[in-house]
């Protein structure tokens, strides 16, 4: 795709506008990927390649091409200016050369008109360079929607180009009309002015004007004799007695005057405006904030921190119907994995109870020993029961589960187990969220075997009251 800078800029601008709502992370991934692909192919990624890729990926039939639409609109505007210029060129030249055989055609008028044309052409360029838009009201009226900020910055240059296109056509058709008129009619040129000007000074003026071409076509610079012979005064028509051929000898000068001071400057300025437009478009593209962002995205590696995995909805069922009950009196207390260290709560020590240690630092063989000795002692009990003290903040593990399953197998049938989770401060009640896992744990054990209890609340807890007093 051969992009001209203007089209490239406008397409790029449009693409960036469309990307505005995309997530930054997505854009980064997309453009970094493109840059890496380019690198692999040995290309250095730029806006044109990038756009090409975007368009290729969106597939054929993509109607939205901002650049093309703008280009077409300006092509139409240029065409309109060119047509108008061509028509006006013919009309103007026909008017300038109007000659009914009575009066001479005044070269001074033609020079003045050429000067005006030259000034207009220069003014157009200066105004576009300065960014001034005297005709913007007209544009606002003609355009359905205001131009984007990027296009708005290009409007002066675009408008200057259109104006110069029209001007060039104007000059060209003017020149052609002049040549046709020269062929099909006899034209009598003379010079005239109200000012008291000597032929000498008028000749100097003519000489200065003809300077650019006098070396090329000496005949196109009127001689002093011709200047002296062709001055006329409207008040005394035909009084000088000049040879009629001499009136016609001005034509090479008029042709070169038009060619050099109207057509040529217009063409040069048209070329200049075209170049300025391209340069401005390139600059705008380079300075486009979207371009800087794109470059950044292409140069910076994308970082994925590992956030694809999603199991947030895969939470365990934390509902439980079990509620903590009251602590039953029991002679046998097992401290699991260091619970109750350094000291068991007073409520448990009050009775004459047997305290055993299992889990944690104890070996598995010691655990076995605990189970075995309890099995023997519980065999004689009427309502065998055991209290298992745990640390509420160390959640139940598989090891405890194994231990209790073995216990259930070895202990007499009907033995009940009360799990007592302790808070770090053993005489306080543990936080509710720490008790919940224990409740759920008992539900996973065979029904009726184990339940959770909490220490009796105040004021039945003498140790507690004592310690807070």
């Amino acid at each position, binding site marked *: 795709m051969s992009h001209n800078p203007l089209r490239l800029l406008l397409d790029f601008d449009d693409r960036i506008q469309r990307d505005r709502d995309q997530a930054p992370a997505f854009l980064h991934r997309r453009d970094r990927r493109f840059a890496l692909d380019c690198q692999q192919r040995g290309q250095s990624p730029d806006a044109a390649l990038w756009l090409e890729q975007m368009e290729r990926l969106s597939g054929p039939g993509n109607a939205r091409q901002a650049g093309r639409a703008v280009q077409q609109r300006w092509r139409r505007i240029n065409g309109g200016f060119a047509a108008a210029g061509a028509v006006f060129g013919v009309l103007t030249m026909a008017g300038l050369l109007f000659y009914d055989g009575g009066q001479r055609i005044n070269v001074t008028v033609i020079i003045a008109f050429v000067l005006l044309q030259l000034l207009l052409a220069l003014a157009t360029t200066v105004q576009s360079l300065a960014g001034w838009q005297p005709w913007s009201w007209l544009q606002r009226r003609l355009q359905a929607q205001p131009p984007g900020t990027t296009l708005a910055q290009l409007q002066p240059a675009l408008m200057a180009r259109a104006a110069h296109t029209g001007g060039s056509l104007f000059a060209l058709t003017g020149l052609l009309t002049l040549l046709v008129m020269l062929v099909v009619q006899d034209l009598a040129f003379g010079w005239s002015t109200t000012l008291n000007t000597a032929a000498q000074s008028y000749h100097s003026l003519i000489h200065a004007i003809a300077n650019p071409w006098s070396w090329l076509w000496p005949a196109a610079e009127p001689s002093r004799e011709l200047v002296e012979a062709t001055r006329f005064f409207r008040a005394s028509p035909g009084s000088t007695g000049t040879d009629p051929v001499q009136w016609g000898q001005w034509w090479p000068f008029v042709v070169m005057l038009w060619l050099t001071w109207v057509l040529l400057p217009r063409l040069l300025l048209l070329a200049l405006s075209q170049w300025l437009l391209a340069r401005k478009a390139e600059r705008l593209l380079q300075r486009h904030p979207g371009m800087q962002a794109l470059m*950044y995205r292409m140069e910076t590696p994308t970082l994925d*921190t*590992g956030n694809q995995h*999603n199991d947030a*909805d895969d939470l365990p069922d*934390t509902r439980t119907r079990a509620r903590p009950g009251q602590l039953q009196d029991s002679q046998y207390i097992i401290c699991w994995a260091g619970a109750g260290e350094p000291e068991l709560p007073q409520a448990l020590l009050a009775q004459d109870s047997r305290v055993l240690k299992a889990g944690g630092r104890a*070996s598995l063989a010691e655990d076995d020993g605990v189970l075995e000795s309890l099995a023997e002692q519980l065999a004689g009990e009427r309502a065998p029961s055991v209290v298992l003290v745990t640390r509420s903040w160390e*959640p139940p593990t598989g090891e405890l589960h194994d231990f209790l399953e073995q216990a259930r197998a070895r202990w007499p049938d009907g033995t009940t187990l009360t799990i007592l989770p302790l808070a770090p401060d053993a005489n306080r009640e543990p936080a509710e969220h720490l008790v919940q*896992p224990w409740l759920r744990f008992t539900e996973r054990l065979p029904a009726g075997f184990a339940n959770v209890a909490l220490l009796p609340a105040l004021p039945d807890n003498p140790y507690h009251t004592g310690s807070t007093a």
Partner: protein
Amino acid sequence: MMNQKPVFAVVGHPNKGKSSVVATLSQNDAIAIALEPGTTRAGQAYPLTVDGQELYTLVDTPGFQRPRRVLQWLEAHSLSASDHPETVRAFVLQHRGDDRFVDECELLAPITEGAGIIYVVDGSVPYSTEHEAEMTILRWTGRPSLALINSIGDDDYSDTWQSALGQFFQVVRKFDAVRAPFEQHLSLLRAFGQLEPDWEQPLEQATHLLSEQRRQRRQQAAQLIARALEDLMSWQEKRTLTLDQIAGTSDATLAETLRERWYQRQRKREQTLRVSIEHLYQHQRIQRQEAELEWASQHDLFSEDTRQHWAVSKKYLAGAGFGAGAVGGAGLDALTLGSSLGAGALIGGVLGAAGSYFYGDRLVLPALNIGPIKDGLKTASFGPVQDSQFGYVVLGRAVDHWWHISHRNHAGRDLLELEPADHHWLEQLDKASRREIQKAFDRCRKQRSLSHSQRQDLASAIEQAMAVYDDWRLNRA
């Protein structure tokens, strides 16, 4: 093993916050975290990739369930210290598919394959020696290891933990997965890199890229806020009415309806901004609570009465702006307001007030505009908002939200509450930035679009405001 990318297995006792640590470091708020042992049932890898190339991987694992039984097996199958790592590998091989050791196999497998060990404990509960079995198993693997003291509850026993863990682990670090600031994430990752010489470079690269990403996000957040401000400040609610409809409704009712719709749209736009900021920081599941965007009726932006007052009295305008801005959380411009309002008024002062004070003369564009009849239809339009304080309120709220989001770790699961606050922070913003913001607001309310460079200026002014807010927060804390 030499060219393998570093892998870190995050292991520990159940329910000590392994998943929280992984969620925060991988910026993933979609990892299941619950106060229930066994929430993590299988090892899950979270690779950090750069352009699709892996730099390192974090593996979240289930907690130890039967460490003593594992240790017993290991001890029974080992002759000397030199065969410890191999024995652990043998254990994993032999017990794959064994229901009792699913969790142990899941957590030991990555370690036997070369992963570094990140052992997580909860520093908010007392240390106990009961964890020694699992620490011993980890030591048997012979892999480089680091212990992390996470903090789930409010109590702090981290000092005893620190000295105890030092006997088992090369490095011991404190790291609060929910509250640790971003710099600590980076420093922790660097510590991971110190575990083995080969790991230093990738981790160094990762931290560099992460901090670069964070800087970039801040910029992008400013751009998002700037865009939203532009939208909100220039929004015009339009409605086309037939002649019958016009005859049937009074201007007041029409204005009321349009105003209501205007607010709805503005609130929706603000919500869109919230979500895009959250997504920018990879927060996909935040539950947020904040006061709705609204305007106290005595400072109604569109009331003809209020505006007339404002056009007449600059002092009143500054006063009105003052009140509204204080609610919204903008700051004080003491230089311009101090003399006109007196010391008492400085308490909750507002930059917005300064804006309205200066631009008050120009607040004369009517909010409700009923156009001429065209093809039997009339167009009634409402807005854009003529008071730039509205913009400051939105800005204050947006920056506040951004700050909370950018400082929120992905392990956080609690409700994000944005409380309206009485802030002074905007007073620290430099003059040039204030001017840029005010200039953009003015253009918007005149419905002139901003040029690229103006947009950029606004975004960098907002970024500046964000930096100021950040400072203010840090100094306050």
